[in-house]
Structure formats: structure tokens, C-alpha cells
């Protein structure tokens, strides 16, 4: 019997890369979880699913930095899921793709990002498609993710 919380794939960058992609994702799980440490410029980074580059993503961002709490909502051509930063600043992100294989609902993507020395941030994205998610592409705001960045995709199977 398969375990409930199962690693699907891991990418650790041996050199800088403009994107990290997980493809041919099985539809046998209930949720997907992406756990990552994205090294690079200090900025939001993004996700596209199923190679969809249309304006089919909308996001609400809630963040705290220093003494400031702020929120923002936008419609865009990618989902927004976490913050990259220099490795010495300890960035991390956990992104939940809920009910990703359901073919009757839009997809809700919920994520937490942290940069150890600066910011805590939460995102909720809606991908306006009833298609099952079969690929996930992660990309920085500009340039590349740095060497040493890690991205691990897990599948969670409900009873």
C-alpha cells in the first residue's frame, strides 16, 4: 500500500536555471504540496500550471514585514507563491495545490513564504480552469534561480 504523503520528485539546481518544471504529474493523489528553497534576487516568484500563460490566475497576498502588514489582489498570467532571496537570508516556501485533479472545479492554491531575515507572506491563488493539474512550472520574477535552490513535490492521498 502506498504511503499517504509521498515524495514525487525533487530538483536541486546544480547551476542557475530560469525555470523548474514538474511534468506528467499523476492524478492519483488528492493534494499536491511543493516545498522549496528558492535562492536568487529578493522577489516574489511564480507558478504556471499546465503551461497556461493566459490571464487565468488571480492572487491575494497578505504580508508582514517589519512593522507593516499589507495586502494586495491582482489578476495575472501566473500564480504567485513565495519569495526568493539570497541563501544566507533563509527563504522557504510551502505551496498546497488543493484537489488538483478535480475536473469540475477551479483550483485553489494556498502558499506560505518566509524569508528568515525579512518577511512572512501568504498567498491564495485561483487558477480558473476545471482541468486537472498535470504540470507545474516555477519561475522567478526575472533572471534565474541560483545554484543550490531546491524544489520537492509531494502527493497526499486521502482515504
Amino acid at each position, binding site marked *: 500500500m502506498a504511503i*499517504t504523503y509521498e515524495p514525487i520528485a525533487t530538483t536541486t539546481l546544480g547551476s542557475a536555471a530560469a525555470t523548474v518544471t514538474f511534468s506528467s504529474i499523476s492524478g492519483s493523489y488528492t493534494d499536491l504540496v511543493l516545498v522549496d528553497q528558492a535562492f536568487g534576487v529578493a522577489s516574489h516568484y511564480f507558478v504556471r500550471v499546465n503551461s497556461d500563460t493566459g490571464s487565468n490566475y488571480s*492572487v*491575494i497576498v497578505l504580508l508582514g514585514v517589519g512593522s507593516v*502588514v499589507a495586502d*494586495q489582489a491582482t*489578476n495575472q498570467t501566473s500564480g504567485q507563491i513565495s519569495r526568493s532571496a539570497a541563501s544566507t537570508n533563509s527563504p522557504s516556501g510551502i505551496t498546497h495545490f488543493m484537489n488538483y485533479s478535480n475536473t469540475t472545479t477551479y483550483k*485553489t492554491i*494556498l502558499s506560505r513564504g518566509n524569508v528568515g531575515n525579512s518577511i512572512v507572506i*501568504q498567498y491564495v491563488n485561483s487558477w480558473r480552469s476545471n482541468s486537472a493539474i498535470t504540470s507545474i512550472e516555477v519561475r522567478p520574477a526575472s533572471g534565474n534561480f541560483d545554484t543550490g535552490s531546491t524544489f520537492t513535490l509531494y502527493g497526499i492521498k486521502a*482515504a
Partner: protein
Amino acid sequence: MTPVYKLSANSVKNGRTNYGSMLAGNTAYELPGDYQSISTVTVGSGGAANIELTSIPSTYTHLQLRCFLQANRATFGMGEFEMTVNGAGGTNYSRHGIVGYGSGGAGYWGNADAAYIYADRGLGTNTGGTYAALVIDILDYKDTNKYKTVRGIQGVDFNGLVGGYTGATNVFSGAYKSTSAITSIKFVSVYGNFTQYSQVALYGIKAA
């Protein structure tokens, strides 16, 4: 219970072996891994006013709920839920959180004494067309020496104003102010019923 009889080659000489359970002396099968699915409720086509998980076993250390929720509510893109445990209401809970609506109105909410735990505007609706996602952890749920800590993240977005909002995302926490072990969890939709495909999946996490 009718005894379970084991017959083997040895029984020819020594007779049958009697057992009081179907395990017949064997070790019960244990699911692999330390993060295990306990139960899942998925709402059918008729909708549901409540989603409840009962008879939660005491074999884990922590619990995690993974939720995908929508209510049948006109006009608004978000609904409200009430989460209780063990059927307890009254002032058995405290709760607080920070919330963003994407409109520059990020804020906080909280109550020291409350009848339930929730996230502000925590559900999606059929009017908004999306489902809210929640991941909720309940730590040390069976420990009878302490109150129970609940922590969660939540989000729903429907791209554009519906009922004056574009969505909401909460970081929230709460306490069940009782030393009783948690054996049941209930979600109630405040406005309208939970719609089809709404789902609450309960997972147990074991310690070493």
C-alpha cells in the same frame, strides 16, 4: 464472540488452537508511514449543512485537516464556517488571526472566549465560483494534560469583486480550552449548505 479456530499440521497431534479475535495471533496490519489518512468526507450532489468527523482514534500525536470548501450562498463570494470539537460550544474556544482581502484592508481579529474556531470569511461560495482551501493543524490532540492548540492557513480568491470583496486569506490560531482528548470535529456552514465536492480530509501524524 465465536472463537476463531486455527488448524495446522500440528493440530493432528495437539488439537486446534483457539483465538478470541480474527487476528488469530497475528499482528494487526499497520499503515506505512507516519502521516496517515484517517477519514475523508466529500459532500455529494445534495449538499450538506455540516461536515463531521467522528470516532477519531487516539493512535496519533497530531492531526491535520486539509479542506476544500464552498457554501451555497447568494450575492457574496465568501461564506463563514464554525469549527467545533467534541460537540463543545459555549466559551470553550479562543481564536485570533490576521486577514487580507487584497483591498488594502489587512487587519486582525480575535476573541478570548468564543463558541467556535473559524477563519474570517473562510469559505468560498457558488456565487464566487471558487472553493476555499484550508490546512489546519491540531497539536497534541489526545493529551489530557493540556488545552489543545489549533493553527491554520486559509485562502479563497474569485478574481474581481463579488459582494464587495475579491477574496480573503487568513493566518489563524485558536485553542480548545479543555484537557479532553479530541474525538470528533465538526464544520458548520453559517450561510447556506456546503456544496458538492466540498471536502474535509483528516490525517494523523505519529511521533517517533
